[in-house]
């Protein structure tokens, strides 16, 4: 089983690298923002696989924190540095 976990983790890291190459080429800033999303999902999967392979439960908590951070980073990034946000009303009153 460990071989499978590690092999899959390596495969995912390769897809991550391929995705990053695509993202760095752009062409628009929006394309580069996909990097955060790519990391959010793929890196979490890699960490979970490594946690299982190494038997170190703490790595799973790293994945948890990563998932949390991905959420916060993404929203902050889009809201602060990228949109000019003309007026932010579309959702209406919560």
């Amino acid at each position: 089983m460990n071989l499978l976990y590690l092999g899959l983790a390596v495969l995912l890291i390769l897809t991550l690298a391929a995705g990053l190459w695509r993202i760095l080429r752009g062409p628009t800033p929006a394309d580069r923002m996909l990097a955060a999303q790519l990391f959010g999902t793929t890196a979490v999967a890699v960490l979970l696989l490594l946690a299982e392979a190494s038997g170190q439960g703490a790595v799973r908590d790293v994945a948890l924190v990563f998932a949390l951070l991905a959420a916060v980073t993404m929203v902050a990034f889009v809201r602060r540095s990228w949109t000019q946000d003309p007026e932010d009303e579309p959702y209406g009153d919560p």
Partner: protein
Amino acid sequence: MRLPGPLPMVRTVLLRLTLFILLWWSLTDGQPESWPLGGVFVLLATGLSLSLSRPVPWSLLGFARFVPFFLWRSWRGGLDVAWRACVPRLPIAPGIMDYRLRLPPGRSRIFMTAVVSLLPGTLSAEIVRNNLIVHVLDRHAANTADLAALESRVAALFRLALHPPSQTHRMTS
């Protein structure tokens, strides 16, 4: 929004308490010695969440129906996009679709906006007044019936009635 009576309030308190207990339990891998500290945090978190957000009306039946619907549709969504990405001739014909929302502004709408992006071929791009602007992967396969089906499930989940029957839907290439 009408004020919650005493019974819904009790229900809300119990529900949030249970959620935070479950959260602590899974974060600490169920270690019994963590509970003295955990108890304090669970109570604090429950109090904080009650002061920050009002009770959300929702239906257990609606939830029970929504989960399998969501899992099945997002499985098909993933399968669909994976297939389109891997076929050599790249069978996509993207377009923008305008969907007139029947859900009122608020949580249910935000929830729907998020879920749309996981369903087959659709991606929520913007909300303009009462219209959800959806990017579709294949404008020939796209139809508003799927969105309407999702919308009624979301409405059932949040105990909402959808008033106007679906109106004009526009497709622009």
